């Protein structure tokens, strides 16, 4: 086996990497079922090549691009990020990808663009969860343009130096480490620049429980459970949850003056 990469970049956490079996075996990916091991069991059948991504909306260079072409545009970077699920557990994940900002610069949002909307694949033939209903498909997520341009915001195509496993969102997934995991939309097929805040999947299902921002915040509880602590998968006792999942220094300024209880 190759020695594990050393993560010492400015954005890497120095915390130990979670077990790869946990990262690839304990997933929320309702397109493949609601159980934590359903994605690992069912996502194998997803065909991730050929795969095209539609880039449209308020951009100067709208286009449909093949995934291999798209990821060839940018040097791939390794990023070791914490991932905090809204359910109260967390992992430390060695992503590989490129900053969303790099893509946005290339496609050139117009001056009217304020938000980025992401749409995932919803194919009932390949995805048993889509066939079963459960959520309103396709899964949609969104970011404010300044959040999207933040250097921490990643489009991941790989994990642990290898191609992204299907259950982790292959071939293209969003990673926004200071937000709850459900913001990290998987199997992206479309990226749309818009001037309106996109209606996102979970905030449509339960608007009082899941907001558009979904910043990790130990002080704003989920209506049904506390967000003050989390279980790092692999550990027995819970640990305190950090504001913005430990990335406050990098991102808190984006929300200056905002009431984070209101914009949860």
């Amino acid at each position, binding site marked *: 086996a190759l020695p594990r990469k050393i993560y010492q970049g400015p954005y890497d956490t120095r915390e130990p990497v979670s077990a790869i079996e946990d990262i690839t075996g304990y997933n929320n990916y309702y397109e493949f079922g609601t159980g934590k091991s359903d994605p690992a069991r069912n996502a194998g059948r997803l065909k991730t090549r050929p795969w095209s991504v539609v880039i449209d909306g308020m951009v100067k260079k709208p286009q449909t691009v093949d995934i291999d072409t798209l990821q060839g545009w940018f040097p791939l970077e390794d990023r070791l990020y914490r991932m905090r699920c809204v359910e109260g557990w967390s992992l430390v994940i060695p992503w590989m990808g490129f900053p969303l900002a790099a893509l946005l610069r290339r496609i050139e949002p117009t001056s009217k663009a304020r938000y980025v909307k992401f749409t995932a694949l919803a194919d009932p033939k390949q995805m048993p969860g889509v066939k079963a209903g459960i959520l309103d498909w396709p899964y949609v997520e969104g970011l404010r343009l300044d959040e999207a341009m933040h250097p921490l915001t990643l489009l991941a195509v790989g994990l642990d130096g290898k191609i992204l496993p299907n259950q982790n969102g292959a071939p293209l997934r969003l990673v926004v480490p200071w937000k709850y995991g459900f913001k990290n939309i998987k199997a992206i097929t479309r990226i749309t620049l818009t001037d309106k805040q996109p209606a996102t999947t979970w905030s449509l299902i339960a608007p009082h429980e899941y907001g558009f921002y979904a910043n990790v915040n130990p002080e704003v509880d989920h209506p049904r459970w506390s967000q003050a602590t989390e279980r790092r998968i692999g550990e027995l*006792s819970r640990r305190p949850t950090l504001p913005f999942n430990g990335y406050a220094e990098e991102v808190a300024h984006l929300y200056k003056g905002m009431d984070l209880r209101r914009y949860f």
Partner: protein
Amino acid sequence: MAPSATIGALLPLPVMVYDAFTGQLGANPLQRAEQQTGLLSLTLILLSLACTPLRLLASRLGTRLLWPARVRKTLGLTGALYALIHLGIYLLDRGPGLLDFLQDALKRPYITVGLTAFLLLIPLVLTSRKDSVRKMGFVRWQRLHRLTYLVGALGVLHYWWSVKEDHTPPLIAAGILLVLFALRFVKKRSR
């Protein structure tokens, strides 16, 4: 009959312990054990509620079944045992801090409801001995033990509120409870 019900109801426990020690409870073992014991508890309590309707239905069809009455107590008691383990795992998961727990119990409806169901189980367990019926008198004993329906209803609500999105399993539990409750009235009217 009763011993086999006891064995059947308790069998998941050693399996769970074995799974825990061999890593087969998955990446989040405490949560898995918590969910499994909760579901087992609710299942056994619903099964205990099914005993009387089953006996009455059989007798209307002309068959006298004795075993449902004999296993009812076992089902109820093991259901209560799993509720106790479920609560224990929850407390272990939360970590120390009784005050925090009480605060949680008051602030979060699904905890309040679950804890209430558990507390209501206590008098039922305490009056489950054979001589309890005699001591209390059958009518009073029966009235007290109708609380099981309330425990079942609170259990279903607790289950409903604890899942994130897919409400199918708690809906099934609610449906079973409603049918069992309805059967009570059918029986009364037809007598």
